[in-house]
């Protein structure tokens, strides 16, 4: 094995264990300070500050167009793919500024993975190729390493038992719920620290949704998860913290139990009880 390959493998392995070292009270994955995002002249996120707890599930709720997805994408700089975006403020991941001029967005996205609303396995690739493509394109050549990571990722995504005999079949041959778990496995394969989920269940039937929710619950011991959801019951079921966004602003943020049982802001209560949104 050549040295550069080794270094990639090592780099990936180095950050595998989430830090167990004791930190002050709740450890924070993200610290977000005065974040604003514009698309052209339109301000999509307005001066948001919040801390996102590590190894917990944080749900982002709010009506359509309130900036949920933009906020999520600002956490791994995916919003920059839209031309003419601009941001102000700071996003720190474990104390590191993700928007520092020296930081490569590709490295940010390796640390902060993402699962999308519509499952999108690559149509030209088999199940196995889909899972390891991130590692491959990031320079990992060792077939042994790729095979290990393939099984590990599929197991973590609770898909291994269903597909272990069909790894060479096209990723698109799976059912909708399986495809979404395949996409989760693909995101996990590069071993990110954080998993962002943009309404991961909105296109799935209730049974497939339940499986994904179960999976999110299992994954939080190892990953920090931030998920956008339209579904109030789902936010209540899966999340430890809930943030309510409205018109680009963070209206209320706190433990899910409190937000749902005793919200401090009238707007939050109105939204949660279905009076608008």
């Amino acid at each position: 094995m050549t040295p550069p390959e080794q270094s990639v493998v090592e780099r990936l392995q180095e950050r595998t264990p989430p830090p167990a070292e004791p930190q002050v009270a709740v450890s924070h994955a993200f610290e977000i300070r005065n974040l604003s995002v514009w698309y052209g002249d339109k301000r999509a996120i307005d001066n948001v500050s919040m801390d996102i707890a590590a190894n917990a599930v944080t749900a982002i709720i709010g009506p359509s167009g309130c900036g949920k997805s933009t906020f999520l994408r600002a956490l791994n700089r995916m919003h920059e793919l839209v031309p003419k975006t601009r941001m102000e403020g700071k996003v720190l991941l474990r104390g590191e500024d993700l928007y520092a001029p020296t930081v490569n967005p590709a490295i940010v996205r390796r640390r902060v993975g993402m699962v999308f609303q519509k499952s999108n396995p690559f149509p030209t690739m088999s199940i196995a190729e889909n899972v390891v493509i991130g590692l491959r394109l990031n320079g990992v050549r060792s077939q042994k390493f790729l095979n290990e990571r393939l099984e590990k990722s599929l197991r973590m995504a609770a898909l291994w038992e269903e597909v272990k005999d069909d790894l060479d079949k096209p990723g698109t041959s799976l059912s909708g719920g399986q495809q979404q778990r395949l996409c989760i496995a693909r995101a996990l394969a590069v071993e990110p620290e954080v998993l962002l989920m943009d309404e991961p269940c909105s296109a799935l039937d209730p049974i497939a949704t339940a499986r994904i929710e179960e999976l999110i619950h299992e994954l939080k011991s190892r990953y920090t998860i931030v998920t956008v959801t339209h579904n109030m019951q789902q936010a209540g079921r899966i999340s430890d913290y809930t943030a309510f966004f409205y018109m680009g602003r963070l209206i209320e943020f706190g433990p899910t139990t409190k937000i749902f049982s005793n919200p401090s802001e009238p707007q939050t209560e109105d939204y949660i009880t279905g009076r608008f949104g």
Partner: protein
Amino acid sequence: MMHTETSDNHAWRESKSALASAFAFISAVLVVTPLGLVFLHLLIHGASSVNWNFFTKLPAPVGAVGGGMANAIVGSLELLALAGAVGIPVGVLGGVYLAEYGSARINSVLRFLADVLNGVPSITWGVVVYGLVVLRFKGFSAYAGGLALGLMMIPLILRTTEEVVLLVPNGYREAALALGVSRWKTIVHIVMKTASKGIITGILLALARVGGETAPLLFTAFGNRFWNHNLAEPIAALPLQVFTYAISPYDDWHRQAWAGALVLVTGIFCVNVLVRLLTRGRGAPVA
């Protein structure tokens, strides 16, 4: 429901509909007929001269029996290889640039220029290359012919590549970028791979298109009655040979010209069938 309509009105509508269908059908037949006629005509006049000699022998002098177009067939393939070496990389990368990079304003200018280039009469390419290459290097050559055909291919491939790359759903780009894959690798390994069938189709159609061109070769490849294995020398090409034979006053050369045209049309037909087969395959998200 039209039960209350007068039957008169209804009949009039029916006949209008029938008339429109009939015109559409006749137009469709008119479109297809020339192809059938051309092919039939070529078969009648050329089929008898398409034999083993045609594919294996050099052109025979006037009056001599036998003779073929082996050198022209191989020459055409060599010219297409040279043209592909110029047209495929520039066309594909240019198309990817238009679809993935660049500002909207510059791209619309580039797109317009490519469309103008697509409309340039093919003989113009021959004249341009004559001026740029043939005069400078003081001689006709396969290189010059290949360049003329290659330049013709660029706008064709560029536009089809752009179209099929734009058809790749954005979700795949996002999925790859979200894995920390660089922009360039995403484009090459995800976007272009997804669009590969469409890109290959565009390349094959461009090759089929320039494969039948005569005008750009008249003062570049020039033609050659003998085997030529030096690409810096004039080279034979099937359409060029057909042209030379067809305007000659000799009956046996005319027969050879018919045969050459038949082989050319059949070859282009085969490429198109190949394209059909390629784009029909399962799991073709972009066709």
